[in-house]
């Protein structure tokens, strides 16, 4: 019981932290990371619901499948948001174009 609660509370706190950062900070990358932290929090709570103490029945596989689905969705949305953010940045800050840099570094957080 205490284990489930610990994981669930951690998940909730992660959700709250992500929510706060998402609303307060204006930087696109921070926003995207905040959403990622939020989704991690939700997955943590979801996976904690599947927990059963040893020897007390089967582990529920449905939350596992749901988390797997959720992760895939989150990866795809994150990637799309990063590419979109790159495009926004590049069209709004034309002077940044002069510096030769590679935009891929940001994307490593998705994989």
């Amino acid at each position: 019981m205490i284990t489930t609660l610990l994981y669930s509370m951690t998940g909730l706190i992660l959700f709250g932290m992500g929510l706060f950062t998402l609303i307060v900070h204006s930087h696109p990358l921070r926003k995207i990371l905040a959403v990622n932290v939020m989704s991690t929090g939700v997955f943590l709570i979801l996976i904690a619901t599947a927990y059963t103490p040893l020897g007390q029945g089967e582990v529920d596989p449905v939350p596992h499948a749901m988390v797997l689905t959720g992760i895939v969705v989150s990866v795809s949305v994150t990637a799309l948001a990063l590419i979109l953010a790159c495009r926004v940045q590049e069209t709004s800050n034309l002077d940044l174009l002069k510096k030769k840099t590679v935009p891929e570094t940001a994307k490593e957080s998705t994989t």
Partner: protein
Amino acid sequence: MIFLNVDNPSWMITPIIVPLTAGLLCFLFQRKTFAIALSAVLVNLLAACFLIGQLLTCGPMRYSMGGWQAPLGITLRTDGPAVLMLLMTGVTGFAITLYARGYFSFRIDDPGGTDRHQQQQRYFWPLWLLLLAGLNGLFLSNDIFNLYITLEIIGISAASLAALSGKPAARLASFRYLLSSLLGSLTFLLGIVFLYKSCGLLDLDLLRNLTENGPGVRAALALMSVGLLLKTALVPMHFWLPPAHANALAPVSAILSALVIKGSFYLLFRLWFEVFASSITTEALNVMGGLGAGAILWGAIQAMRQHRLKLMVAYSTVSQLGYLFVAFPLSRAADNAQVWSIVIFMAMAHACAKSAMFMSAGTIFLHFGHDRIQDLTGVRASLPITVLAYGIAGVTLMGLPPSGAFIAKWLLLSWALASCQWWWVLVIIAGSAMAMIYVFRVISRFIVIPEGFSSQKLEFHSRLLEWPALALALISLLLGLVAPWLLHILAKGSIDLTQILPGGLP
């Protein structure tokens, strides 16, 4: 051939599978995409009509995916509201597809056109068809986690479509849209987690039959509602809608404003009035109604203040959404079919009228190169059919008879008076009056031809740019005349639903 029988529930999957496959094929081949898309939306429309016929002869149906029954497997079901939303999507989607063809070929044929327009058209079709599949999946699904995935399909494709125009403003708006939609679906997912933790179920019918509604279920409902409200853009959370809708390409604006918003609203309404109807309190309903009233007034005031046509139409969407929410506190006394009737009428009328408006605005933008309301004097001389479509759609927004919106507003007013909640009457009348102002402000510009005005000769003219908008506008206007038939479908759907429901947990 046993599965070609009329009463086979397998027909239900046609509106999901056909656009899905067509979208994949459009992405794969990138040639003849219009032919693929047109046949897909045509089949989709026919399937919606067929499902209505099926509903009328056989009553509501359910379909278990892969034959796995409800607690574990995913079920789809048809009932009155679902098939009418499918019909709405089918009709609007068909017209938008034709219009999009005209729109893209106009831009590609334009002598100053670049490769960019070709690229836009190339990616528009798969995104639009997959969005259509997601919407149909949302209307038919009966499983809360499956609904989350359809919401994600809709969110991702809608945000990509909104960014398609390539303008920096559109990209920024689309980024905001994507993040808001993501926040909405994450909140929705957290709600699902709470629900699963307290009930251990995902199927909507089984959840509905649960008698226990502890704090867990109520928290779940609150979280899911907030997520869906963010996606539906009810007033305090509407910040993303006007820029995203106004800066997108015209067919995309029509899709976003007419259909995408309705998807999340439909789900919200279904959760409140069917699945968790027993845990809803009067206070919660009044809060929703209050937010709706705020949306009506604030959206209308903003729409009156806009200088750009598309922004004005986008704010009018914010305003019109409010009517859907004012129905919440008034539906307390009504039975199931009546509750749905207002919302369905309003949603269908708004979908047709708003897409017609955005199409007209897009046509005007294409031909004149801008959409500043001030400088659009005498458009009627160049584009008479477009202006006619715009005007008829405006009649629906104002809620004049015989439009579908008139029926919805009439029902709202009569319920408000019957239940002695007169303040909603004031809001509805004020909203309609303001709609009149912002519609006429534009129309008067279009129609009045000042002295010494020489109409611009338009060299190229596509019928697909004008007639779909007019057809949709006429449908929205004449929707009130077929009201008894629609009510019959709704009644048929929900009466049988109560009989077919399983009586408790397995």
